[in-house]
């Protein structure tokens, strides 16, 4: 259970919490994503996950970088922060360290997370703050109109690669597993139930949780990489009998990123180590009395 005590002095939400609905999480701002963009599915799945979690929206901080996908916090009633390109994770860590009582969500694009922001990922993971990080991986730079993203496949022709990309793409799943993430999953908006459930699980996981969403860009993305095709391509890990506590197997499956469309939980640490936030509280508690004693 996630605790909902906050130290902000405002009305406690423990008292008779009214059941929440998706309406409680949908803001008045109308999304300006292109019709058919995969990100619509992501925000819908998120609303559902948040209903299941049951924390009131004002106890949620939702942080993103810059990109089409990074607009997502504005479409929720959480405290949103659409920061600058690539810096969502450090901002989110500052928030969580400053107030560990908050539920902190982070989201953004493949470029935001694994290109300009790629240097922050290993450190966020090894620190292991209790954050949920959702990457909307469309293999393209959507907002800037279709350049190579770090997950664009080799050979792809985009507005910045007329003759085809000459580099291997990054592998977000393999990277975060190597970094030691305790929860790693991949979802598709085409499987709304699965995605919502997965995000909920990620939030419930006590520690850094990573969800890669294959969220197609209908405007600049590969036509073979759209919602309809996802339905035929996806392979549910659960159905394939994958045991999410098996890290080595997860690493093996992750190597197929870009070839196979696995969905579900790749890895969930069966013995979650203490989070950074819990260590902070502990250190504060151990050291605080000393000051008092010293006068």
């Amino acid at each position, binding site marked *: 259970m996630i605790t909902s005590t906050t130290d*902000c002095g405002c009305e406690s939400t423990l008292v008779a919490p009214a059941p929440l609905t998706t309406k409680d999480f949908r803001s008045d701002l109308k999304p300006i994503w292109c019709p058919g963009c995969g990100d619509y599915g992501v925000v819908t799945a998120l609303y559902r996950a948040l209903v299941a979690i049951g924390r009131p929206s004002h106890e949620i901080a939702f942080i993103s970088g810059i990109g089409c996908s990074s607009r997502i916090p504005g479409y929720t009633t959480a405290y949103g922060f659409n920061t600058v390109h690539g810096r969502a994770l450090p901002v989110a860590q500052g928030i969580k360290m400053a107030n560990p009582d908050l539920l902190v969500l982070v989201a953004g694009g493949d470029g935001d997370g694994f290109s300009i922001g790629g240097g922050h990922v290993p450190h966020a993971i090894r620190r292991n703050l209790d954050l949920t990080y959702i990457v909307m991986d469309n293999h393209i730079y959507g907002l800037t109109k279709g350049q190579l993203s770090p997950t664009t496949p080799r050979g792809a022709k985009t507005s910045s690669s007329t003759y085809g990309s000459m580099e291997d793409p990054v592998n977000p799943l393999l990277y975060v597993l190597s970094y030691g993430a305790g929860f790693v999953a991949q979802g598709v908006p085409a499987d709304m139930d699965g995605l919502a459930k997965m995000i909920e699980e990620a939030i419930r996981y006590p520690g850094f949780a990573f969800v890669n969403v294959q969220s197609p860009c209908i405007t600049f993305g590969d036509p073979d990489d759209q919602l309809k095709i996802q339905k035929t391509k996806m392979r549910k890990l659960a159905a394939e009998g994958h045991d999410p506590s098996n890290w080595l197997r997860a690493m093996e499956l992750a190597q197929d990123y870009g070839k196979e469309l696995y969905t579900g939980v790749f890895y969930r640490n069966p013995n979650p180590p203490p989070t950074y936030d819990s260590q902070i509280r502990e250190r504060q508690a151990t050291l605080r009395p000393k000051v008092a004693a010293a006068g």
Partner: protein
Amino acid sequence: MLNDLIIGMAGSGGDGIVSAGESLISALAQDGYYAILTKSFGSQIRGGESSCRLRVASTPVLNPGGTLTVAVVLNWEDFLRFGGELPVGPGTVVIYEQKTKVAPDAIPLAVKPAIVRAVPMAELAMKSAGTLQAKNNVVLGLLAGWFGLARQSILEGLRKKFAKKGAEILQGNERAYAAGLDYADKNPLEGDWHFNPPQAGVGKRLITDGNELCASAALFAGCKFFGGYPITPATEIMQHLQRDIWKHGGSLLQAEDEIAGIAAVVGASFAGRKAMTATSGPGLSLKSEVMGLASLAELPLVCVNVQRGGPSTGLPTKSEQADLFAAAFSAHGDTVRPILAPISVEDMFGITVEAFNIAEQYQTPVIVLSDQEIAQRKDIVDPVDRSRFKLVERLEPTAAEMVDYTRFRLTESGISPLSHPGMKGGSYLAAGIEHNEHGDPCSSGEMHEQMNNKRLNKLNPLKQRRDLFLLEGDPTAEVGVISWGSIAGVALEAVRTARAQGLSVKLLIPKLLYPVAEEVYQDFFKSLRRCLVVEQSHQGQLHRIIRMWVNTPAEFTSLAKSGANPITPDDVLRRISAMTRATASA
């Protein structure tokens, strides 16, 4: 009788010259003196040449001073490496290691000092303590003996220092100290070189530096989060805080880089906490983009930038004041962020508190421009009277304001109540993109103009903060001096000397460097015909920034030197005299 004594010592890493300086300043603090100790090293991490300067007086010391009263040379090569940092003049007493085999009339200096003494320091150390390592205590004995400095307190300090090392080592060092004293007594200096006794009945004093005071001030001001990355000469701020911030219910992140550091600070501020970072030049450059985000999102934060020699990696261990342009302008778009600068170690406390207050009050990033000298030199200071400081908390929305909460409401002051996660009804979208009053993204030119107005004009009241300016001297003077940061103490001494010599001059020391307080300068300029700006940078950056915003006196000149080139009270005094002459003859 001397009133003001400047000792400079240099040797190689193993000579313990810096440690001698530290022992001396501790003893002087005990005895009720004021002093400043600056250290300087070669580029090696361990070993290599090292030096220190110690200036002592019975009244507060304004700056590390210029020409040495006493030069202690453990070997000439190392001493000369420090060049202008250890200037010897015709009035200097030079004490050097006899073993260097240089004849007193053949010492490698351009000037002829007042007294030159070759002392068998190594020999005395070996004889008394059986180890060359005790040389520095011989030096302490010489200084105590010849200049009458803290004789007893030095001994007590040595006893404390070596207490844990066992009786043998302790006694060896005591004997070395005694040998130095004895040598001084037996070979007195010609003339009266004894130092003024301290003022009687002084209270307990502190030996501290700017970085340490910055950390304690931050905690006092209520700082609950620090995010940053190590960099010379700012690292100690983080190092002090990581020991103590938890005790105050705060936390600290040694981030993976400077950008992550300040981004986390922005996050902590968004979460409702007072937060800060600290860095030096290269880090400041890296933080530009996120500083801009904080300005646009109107989130308070404090960024301490301890200036070192630039550009680029530059001279990482030397002091300079050349980051003012970067502090004022290093983010794209139209932004203004308040910049404060301390003028002394002691001042760092108040300036840091003020930085937090301004940040929270005006919902803005604030840059504190410290410099390597203030950050790392050791000063003897009076204990900080914390009751002098009021703390400011950010304006939060009332219950009524949280009905249809309008984060960026266009108020008269430009300051809008700021909620934070956890406050029911206060949810909003913070962003780096331009927004309307509610915080929703908005690309209308009119709204952009209004928001620019809000963000820039809200800082105008700062320009009326005359308490952030020091003014001294003759209000009707036609000659004026402006200076800032650690160099301000040099200008202050020069102006006082000039006035003591009967010159009519006045001095303005801004601690608020930006936004430029036009009226304060205008008032200062009113009586002036000539004005000089004294600062440690190549371009004279404050001089240029004042010109940007204020009409200056007909002659508005700059005394500016690149970092690591000492600016002394004499340098300034010469310019004051010249300006006075020019004014008189005009």
